[in-house]
């Protein structure tokens, strides 16, 4: 299968290892992976701020960049959700572009759900000896039904014990521009999340969205807690030696 990787802005800027982990996993699943050079952002910041015009312009660019691939895969439920769920909404009054939006939506995926639901991946052959807990990022969970798939694959990682996070489905408080516009409320939400994570006694917290992870890791670090935060792709691809946990120096 010829798959295009949707890198996402945050992975591009902050943590390319996640992108390489995604590529590795996709190749292990039998895909040929390409990374279209003309991609930038999915347009969600503009869209969620009410700027439909710019969101549409960016979406058109995404249509072009990802034309011709069998599947488009993003290591982020938030960006994948933007493409799958919101692009069609964006063009609901525009029949010409709506068709392109629906067509792209139908072949766009969040990474872990793609591996399990489309590629049929049932296990990975990596090992990582840790007690971990898992945060269900909101968009992936509610827009794309990403829930069982990460747990399934994590269950196959040798040495890994998963402790369910109470309130796993509660928002961490990132919300894109929300954390900047309402910093105190965001802080309360991420503080509660950090508390829940610490209460599990887990050594590491994983999630499928780098936005959530930067937020959560930032809080854990500020609190002096030594809980590793990583993207699930790094763990599944066996690349935990390649890069320290988020926010930890080399």
């Amino acid at each position, binding site marked *: 299968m010829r798959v295009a990787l949707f890198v996402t802005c945050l992975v591009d800027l902050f943590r390319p290892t996640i992108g390489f982990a995604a590529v590795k996993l996709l190749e292990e699943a039998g895909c040929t992976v390409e990374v279209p050079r003309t991609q*930038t952002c999915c347009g969600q910041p503009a869209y969620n701020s009410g700027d439909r015009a710019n969101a549409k312009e960016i979406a058109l660019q995404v249509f072009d960049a990802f034309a011709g691939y069998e599947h488009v895969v993003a290591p982020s439920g938030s960006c994948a959700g933007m493409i799958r769920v919101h692009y069609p909404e964006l063009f609901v009054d525009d029949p010409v572009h709506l068709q392109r939006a629906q067509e792209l939506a139908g072949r766009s995926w969040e990474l872990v759900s793609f591996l399990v639901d489309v590629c049929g991946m049932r296990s990975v052959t990596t090992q990582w000896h840790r007690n971990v807990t898992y945060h269900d990022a909101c968009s992936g969970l509610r827009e794309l039904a990403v829930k069982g798939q990460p747990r399934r694959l994590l269950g196959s990682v040798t040495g890994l014990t998963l402790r369910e996070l109470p309130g796993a489905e509660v928002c961490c408080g990132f919300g894109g521009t929300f954390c900047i516009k309402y910093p105190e409320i965001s802080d309360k939400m991420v503080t509660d999340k950090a508390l829940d994570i610490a209460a599990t006694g887990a050594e590491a917290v994983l999630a499928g969205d780098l936005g959530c992870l930067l937020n959560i890791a930032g809080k854990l670090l500020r609190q002096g807690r030594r809980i590793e935060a990583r993207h699930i792709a790094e763990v599944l691809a066996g690349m935990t030696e390649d890069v320290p946990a988020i926010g930890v120096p080399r």
Partner: protein
Amino acid sequence: MLATSRNFEARARSGLANENLQRALRLARTGFPLRRRLAIERLPEFEALREIGRAIKDHTIEHLDFYLEYYETKVEASGGQVHWARTPEEACAAVLQICRSAGAKTVTKGKSMVAEEVGLNEYLEANGITPVETDLGEYIIQLRKEPPSHIIAPAIHLVKEQVAETFRAEHRALDAARPLDEPRQMCDEARAVLRPQFLAADVGITGANFLVAETGSSIIVTNEGNGDLTQILPRVHIVVTSIEKLVPTFEDAATLLRLLARSATGQEFSTYTTISTGPSRPGDLDGPEEYHVVLLDNGRSALIGGEFQDMLRCIRCSACLNHCPVYTAIGGHAYGWVYPGPMGAVLTPSLIGIEQAGHLPNASTFCGRCDSVCPVKIPLPKMMRHWREREYAKRLTPSVYGTGLSAWAWVARRPALYHMFAELASRALGWAGSGRGRFRALPLAAAWTRVRDLPVPEGRSFQSLWAERQKARRPR
């Protein structure tokens, strides 16, 4: 009710700092979702009922003019009277006129958010009539002169010590040495204090959870029974309600009632679900002699056919509030008006204008939990986004965000430039933070770094690294 939604940020901050409120919200945050989940697990048909509930409300709204007229005929046929009110002023005036005709001095009230919306209590007091709230939560906040902070549990923001303090301050005729440490004691005290009020009232005012067109009936649900004592003891029963509460038949109401209590408190059914139709019948030994319905529009009819029509499906269960991480962090008073939480974030701007209520649809991460628990499938985040679109179009968005986002969008539409900036930024930040792993402070990122560290980027952008990798792998 006077809106203070403009002060959302300050009020949210004060809510976050309020220890009593935080203690109270902690109980709510886990309690409500758990109870709802348990109730739903016992009803396998719940998901199917959500879809049917949505369909019933949509059908009614799409034919609302027919159902309103049909309903009115039936109310009149049963001996009741409908008073149509376009505005809060008209609604209050109608209630006052009925009270005056009845020579009312005291009025008991069951809980009604519409009555809050129109500021009924203040209006009646200004006109020499004393309204007595009888729902325990409403009674407590009436004594404290506070607005409700939740649409079904108005005093949820208080801890029991605050309630005790209020009762001691206001029930001065009672023995000051009496114990008031436990909810049981406070409940008994409220019951004893309010019982004579029920009996003495000339007029009883309730809201309505539903209006049934088929029979011209109003339905209220309570757990306390206060709504019942309010309506059967006085001579006059006034229902203060709004046009979108209509459903066609009892069977339709039954379906929505199956959704309501489970979504609200996790109960199978509210303790008292009461269907009232007109005044008492000839030969009845009790019941009111007059039955009036004050039917409020206040901007709802204008929502039909537009982007916010779905909001009219709301059955006021409060599931969205109870599951909202923002509401359960800051409490209901931060929202500054009658309707807090996600449903308030959509409805408030519709009723009082986006200029006043602008913060409400913005203070959301769009986590979507509200959407997933709404018993009638209202797409709340989508409608909050529509409000943001209207703000953006009216240039109500604060300029710092507007400029920043426009700049971002401008760059994002120019891939070559974007990749160059991404590479530059990751190198610069990577270099600035090398060896540290994270920034404790960073210029221009104060809102972030004030409360959390910012992880340092790896130092190269993915696209640059990928390009290098591809180049290295190309056959020479």
